[in-house]
C-alpha cells in the first residue's frame, strides 16, 4: 500500500488531536496544509491558534510559519488521502479506480486481478478488480476464511503478509462483520468494536482490511470525521437482505400528467403565434425566449421536480428534442438571418388533434408502430428505451427491452408499489442484463463512454435498476403512463400504472386519458381563472387560453383579448376553447366571459404576407395599355398601379410591351 501502510494505533492517537479542532479548522488542515510544507502565518490566519493548540502543527522559531508536527505527518498524509477518496460520495467504477491507483501499487493491483493477456495490468483486468472486490462474494469469502492462507491467493509476490497471525485475521473479520451490520463507523470507535484487543492487533486488522479492499476509509462530509466502511451497498447484500416482492401501500399526493405532451404543445403553440428565434452559433433558443417558454409550462409538484430531475429547463430541452425528432418543428432561415424555429405542417396537424390523439401519436411513435421521421438521431430519441440503446448494441437492446416492458407491466393500476422496492425486486428477479452477462462472460456495455466488462452481480443489479428508473423518468412519467405518489406518512415514492401506461407497454389496445377528479378550478366574472387545488394537467390545458399569473394554486391565469388572439393563432377554435373551459371549470363560464370570448374570436383574422411585383404606370391610359397587353397575367390595383401575377415578366411579354411603346425599367 502507498499511504495506508502506517501504524494505525498511532493514527487513532493523533485523531484525538484532530478532534480538538473546530470543523472549519479541520477543513483547512485537510485541504490547505501539506505534511512537509510550511504554511505562513498569514495563510494560517484565524486557524493558527486552534491548529497550534491541538498539537498537530508547530510554529517555527521565528514565528513566521508553521509546520505539521513531525509525529503527525503520517496522520496528515493519511487524512488527505481519505479526503481525496470519493468512494462514498460518489461510488462508481471511476471513483474505485481512482482510489485503487491512489492507494495500491501496480503489483498489488495485479495480485487482485491476475495478469492480463500481455502479462501486465490492462483495462479488462482492471475492470475485473472492481467486479470482484465490489461484489458481496469478496467480503463473504474473507469472513469465511479459516486461516491466514486466504491472503496467499491475493497478495503479490514478495509482499509482506498483512494478516500476520490468526489474531489479526480474527480481529479483521470481526471488524468487517461489525461494519457490515452497523454501516460505516468512525475510526475512533474501532477500539470499542474490538475490545480486549491489543493495539498492534487493531492496527494490523485495519491495515489488512484496507490492503485487501475489504474496507474503505473516507471523511464524513459535514464534519470531516474519519470513517471506515464497506463498499457502498454491499452491506445489505452481505447480510443476505434479499429484496422482497413489493406490496401495495397507502399513498398521498398522487400525480399523473402527460406533461411532456403538454410541454410540446406549449412550445409548439408559442411557435405558431410567433416563430422562436434561434442563436446562430449553437442553434439553440435565446435565453429570453426560454424564460418565456418556462412561463408557459404547467407546474409540477416540487417533489416531482426534485425526485425526477424535471425542472423547467430540463423539460424545455426534452420537449424541444421530441418536437425535433417527430419533425413537428423545423429550423428556418439561416444563422444570423432570421434563424428561427417554426411549426411544420405535421406539427400543426398534431396541435389540432384532441389530447388523446396527440398522446397516442407520441406513444405510437415511440413504440415504432408509426413511421419514423427523418430527423437526425430520431431513432434514438424515439426509441422506447433510449438508455438501452446507449448502453448496448441494437441487437442486445432488442433483447433487453422486453424485460423492461414486462417489469413495468407487472405494476398494478389500482394499487401503488414503493418504487425502491419495485426496482430492487426487478433488478433481482427480472434482470435482462444479468441474463446476458450470465450467457457471455465477456459481455460488455457502454458506461459513461467507456466499455465495461466483467460485470459483477451487484453491478448488473445497480445498472439495471438505473435503466428501469430512467425508463420511468424518461418515458412513463412524462407521458402520463404512471401515477406517482408519496407513501402516506413516509417519503417513499410509489407508482401505479395508468391506461396510457398499459398502452405504451403493449398490454392494452387502447387507453383513456384519465380526468383529474381532484382539480377544482373556477372562472371568475373578472376573467381570472382560479385553481383551488393544483392540477398540472388542467394547468397545461388552460395555459394555451389565458395569460399566466401564478403557479400551483390561486389565480393562475387571466383570460384576455390577447390570450384569446394567441389561442386563435395557435389553431384553437372558439368552440374548442369554450369546451375546454367548461370541461375543467367547476361552475361553468360566466356569461360575460363567454360573450367576450365569442367577441374576441370573432375579431381574430389571419392575413398572409407575400411578395408582389407591382407595375407603376405614369397614368391610367398607360395602365390600361399594359393591362391589355398582359391580360390575365396582371390585375389592376388602382388607376395607375398593376400587380403582376407571375414572379417576373417573360421576355416574350416584354417584347410585346415594347412593340406597344411601353418600356420597362426595374
Amino acid at each position: 500500500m502507498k499511504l495506508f501502510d502506517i501504524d494505525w494505533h498511532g493514527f487513532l492517537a493523533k485523531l484525538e488531536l484532530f478532534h480538538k479542532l473546530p470543523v472549519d479548522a479541520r477543513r483547512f488542515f485537510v485541504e490547505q496544509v501539506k505534511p512537509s510544507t510550511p504554511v505562513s502565518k498569514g495563510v494560517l490566519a484565524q486557524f493558527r491558534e486552534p491548529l497550534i493548540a491541538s498539537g498537530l502543527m508547530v510554529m517555527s522559531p521565528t514565528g513566521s510559519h508553521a509546520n505539521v508536527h513531525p509525529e503527525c505527518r503520517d496522520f496528515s498524509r493519511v487524512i488527505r488521502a481519505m479526503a481525496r477518496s470519493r468512494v462514498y460520495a460518489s461510488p462508481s467504477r471511476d471513483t474505485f479506480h481512482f482510489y485503487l491507483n491512489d492507494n495500491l501499487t501496480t503489483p498489488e493491483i495485479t495480485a487482485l486481478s491476475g495478469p492480463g493477456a500481455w502479462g501486465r495490468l490492462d483495462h479488462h483486468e482492471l475492470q475485473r478488480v472492481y467486479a470482484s472486490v465490489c461484489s458481496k462474494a469478496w467480503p463473504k469469502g474473507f469472513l469465511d476464511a479459516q486461516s491466514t492462507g486466504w491472503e496467499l491467493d491475493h497478495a503479490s509476490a514478495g509482499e509482506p503478509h498483512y494478516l500476520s497471525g490468526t489474531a489479526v485475521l480474527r480481529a479483521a473479520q470481526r471488524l468487517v462483520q461489525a461494519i457490515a451490520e452497523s454501516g460505516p463507523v468512525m475510526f475512533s470507535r474501532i477500539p470499542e468494536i474490538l475490545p480486549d484487543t491489543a493495539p498492534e492487533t487493531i492496527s494490523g486488522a485495519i491495515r489488512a482490511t484496507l490492503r485487501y479492499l475489504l474496507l474503505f476509509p473516507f471523511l464524513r462530509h459535514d464534519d470531516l470525521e474519519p470513517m471506515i466502511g464497506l463498499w457502498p451497498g454491499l452491506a445489505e447484500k452481505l447480510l443476505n437482505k434479499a429484496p422482497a416482492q413489493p406490496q401495495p401501500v397507502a399513498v398521498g399526493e398522487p400525480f399523473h400528467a402527460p406533461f411532456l405532451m403538454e410541454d410540446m404543445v406549449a412550445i409548439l403553440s408559442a411557435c405558431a403565434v410567433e416563430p422562436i428565434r434561434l442563436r446562430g452559433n449553437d442553434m439553440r433558443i435565446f435565453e429570453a425566449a426560454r424564460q418565456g417558454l418556462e412561463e408557459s409550462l404547467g407546474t409540477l409538484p416540487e417533489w416531482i421536480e426534485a425526485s425526477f430531475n424535471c425542472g423547467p429547463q430540463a423539460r424545455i430541452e426534452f420537449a424541444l428534442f421530441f418536437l425535433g425528432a417527430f419533425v413537428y418543428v423545423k429550423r428556418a432561415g439561416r444563422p444570423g438571418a432570421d434563424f428561427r424555429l417554426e411549426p411544420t405542417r405535421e406539427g400543426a396537424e398534431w396541435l389540432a388533434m384532441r389530447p388523446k390523439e396527440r398522446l397516442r401519436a407520441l406513444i405510437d411513435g415511440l413504440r415504432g408502430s408509426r413511421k419514423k421521421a427523418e430527423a437526425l438521431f430520431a431513432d434514438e430519441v424515439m426509441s422506447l428505451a433510449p438508455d438501452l440503446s446507449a448502453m448496448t448494441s441494437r441487437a442486445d437492446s432488442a433483447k433487453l427491452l422486453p424485460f423492461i416492458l414486462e417489469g413495468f407491466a407487472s405494476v398494478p393500476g389500482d394499487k401503488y408499489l414503493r418504487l425502491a422496492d419495485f426496482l430492487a425486486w426487478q433488478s433481482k428477479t427480472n434482470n435482462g442484463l444479468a441474463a446476458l452477462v450470465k450467457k457471455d462472460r465477456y459481455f460488455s456495455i457502454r458506461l459513461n463512454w467507456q466499455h465495461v466488462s466483467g460485470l459483477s452481480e451487484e453491478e448488473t443489479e445497480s445498472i439495471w435498476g438505473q435503466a428501469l428508473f430512467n425508463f420511468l423518468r424518461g418515458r412513463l412519467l412524462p407521458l402520463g403512463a404512471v401515477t406517482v405518489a408519496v407513501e402516506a406518512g413516509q417519503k417513499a415514492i410509489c407508482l401505479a400504472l395508468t391506461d396510457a401506461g398499459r398502452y405504451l407497454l403493449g398490454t392494452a389496445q387502447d387507453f383513456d386519458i384519465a380526468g383529474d377528479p381532484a382539480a377544482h378550478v373556477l372562472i371568475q366574472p373578472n376573467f381570472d381563472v382560479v385553481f383551488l387545488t393544483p392540477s398540472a394537467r388542467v394547468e397545461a390545458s388552460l395555459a394555451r387560453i389565458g395569460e399566466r399569473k401564478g403557479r400551483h394554486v390561486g389565480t393562475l391565469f387571466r383570460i384576455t383579448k390577447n390570450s384569446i388572439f394567441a389561442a386563435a393563432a395557435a389553431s384553437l377554435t372558439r368552440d374548442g376553447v369554450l369546451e375546454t373551459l367548461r370541461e375543467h371549470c367547476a361552475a361553468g363560464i360566466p356569461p360575460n366571459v363567454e360573450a367576450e370570448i365569442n367577441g374576441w374570436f370573432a375579431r381574430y383574422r389571419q392575413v398572409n404576407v407575400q411578395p408582389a411585383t407591382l407595375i407603376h404606370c405614369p397614368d391610367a391610359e398607360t395602365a390600361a395599355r399594359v393591362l391589355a397587353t398582359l391580360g390575365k397575367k396582371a390585375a389592376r390595383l388602382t388607376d395607375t398601379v398593376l400587380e403582376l401575377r407571375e414572379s417576373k415578366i417573360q421576355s416574350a411579354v416584354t417584347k410585346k410591351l415594347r412593340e406597344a411603346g411601353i418600356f420597362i425599367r426595374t
Partner: protein
Amino acid sequence: MPGFRSDNPLIVQGDHTILAEVASPRYEDARDQLARFAELIKAPEHVHTYRVTPLSIWNACAAGVGAAEIIGALQEFSKYAIPEHVSVEIRDFASRYGRLRLVRDERGLVLSANDVPLAEQVARAKQTAPLLGTRLSPREFLISPAARGDIKQALVKIGFPAEDLAGYTSGEALAFSLRDQTLAGLPFKLRAYQQSAAAAFHASGSDRGGSGVITLPCGAGKTIVGMACMSVLQCSTLILTTSVTAVRQWMRELLDKTSLREDEIGEYSGLAKDVRAVTIATYQIMSWRAGKDGDFPHLALFNERNWGFIVYDEVHLLPAPIFRVTASLQARRRLGLTATLVREDGREDDVFALIGPRKADVPWKVLENQGWIATAQCTEVRLPMPEELKMPYAVAEARDKFRIASENPLKIHAVRAILDRHPGEPALLIGMYLDQLEALAKPLGLPVITGSTPQRKRDELFTDFREGRIRVLAVSKVANFAIDLPEASLAIQVSGTFGSRQEEAQRLGRILRPKAGLNQAHFYSIVSRDTVEQDFALKRQLFLCEQGYAYSILDGEALGAPAAHSALQ
C-alpha cells in the same frame, strides 16, 4: 398536497394576498375574521381576494387584534399551509404597532418608545429626527403639539406607527340629539351596524377612540353614522365634503334627523360663508387659492372656532392642502367617512396617520343580504356603429374615436328601450358629453343637470326627482359625487370617462338605495361595438365584477335597437 383541507375557504399566497372561496361552508366565518385584519381587494362571484398589508395589520392592532390571533385565524381557515414568510411578516408588521406611543403628561406631549434601540432608530431617521424635541430619557422625546400630526406621518413612513393616546380638546359644547321621528314624520332609528360603527369610533370616550375612518358601502348611510358620532360627542363640528350639493344634503339631513336648528348649521362654500356651531364646507373652497403660489385663505376656518370634532366626508378624496392642515389638528377628534379606502394617489398611510385607523367596516354583501342596500344588475348594451360613421371612426385620432363611438346616434333607441323595460322606475341618464346629453334628453323630454346649471335650479330638479315629479333626470359628471337620490333605481350611462374605478363606484353608489318591492337596482352602460369605447368598457366591466356586481352583455338588437345598416331615423 399535504395538509389539504377542502372545506376551508382560504388560500394564503406568498404575495400576502388571500383568496376566499365563497362556496365554502366556512366562508362567512372566515370573511368575518378577514375583515378585522385584511383589505378586500376584489370580490367577483366565486373567489374574493383580500390582502394583508402593514396598514391593515396596524388597523387590526389598533382594534386590539394581535399577530397570534391573525395567524391563528388564517391557519384555521386555510386550505393549505400558510407560507412561512407570510407568518413571519405578519408578526413583524404587528410587532411594530404599539412600540411607540404619544401621551400627554405634566411634561407635555411625549413620544415614548418601548425600548432604547427603537428610540435611537427614531432619533436617527431623517424623516423623524427634525420633528423630535428634547430627549427626556433614553426612551422618551418631547414633541411640539404643532408637530403631533407630522411626527405620526413620519413614523408611519419609517414603518413604526405611533399609538396616539394624547387625548383631545373637548371643543365648544353643543347640545343636541337625534330625533325619533324625522321632520317628515317618519320614524327614525339607527340601524345596528350604524350604531356599532359609531360606538367603535367613540370607544366610550376613551383616548383610544375619537379618531379614525369608517368604511361603509355607498347607500349604507354614512351621513347618519357621522351624525351619530356628533350626537355622542356633543360639540361643535366642522364637516368637510365634496360639493355644494353635498353640503346642502348634509344640512337637510341634519335638520331632518337631529334637534339642531337652522341657525346652528352653516354653509361655507363658494356661495356662502356662514360659520356656525355646525359648519359644512367643501374641499374646493378650503383648498382654493388665488394663485399657484398663494396661501389657502379659507384654511383659517379650521381655527375660526374651537371645533371639537371634524368630519371628512368621502375622505378618500381629501386633497393635499387639507392633509397638511389636518396634521396640525391632531388635538381635535376626527372622523373620515368613505366607501373605499383606496386612493388614486396612494396616500392611504397618510389617512391612517392623520385621520386615524379604520374603526368600522361592514362588507357590502352583508348589507345587501340584510336588505339595507339594493342588489345591482349591471348590463352592457352593445350597439353597432352606423354605416355612415364607420369610416370617420376608422380614420379619426384616438381621442376623437372615443367621442365618435360615445356619441353613436343609435344610442337613443337603446335608451328608449331600456326606459320602456323599466316603466315607472326613477332613472338617471348619465353622460360625459353635454351635447350628447342634450341631444338625448330633448326628444325624451328630460331635464338636464350639467356643471353650468345654477345651484338653485339643481336643487329644484333634485327635489322634484326625489318627490317623484320627475321620473328621469339627465345628469353630467356633477352627479358623480355625494348626491343623495334615494329613489333612483335605474342608471343608464351613455358615455363615460376613461374607466376610472372611482367613477364607476360613485355612479353605482348613486342608485344603491333600498327600494320597496324587489330591492333591485339596474345599471346599464351603452357602448358601441368593436370600438375603443368597448375596450374601455372592458376595464369598467372588470372593476364592477371585482366589486361583486353581476354583469351581463346584451346586444342592442336584442333590446330592440336598430341594426347598423339601417339609417338613423
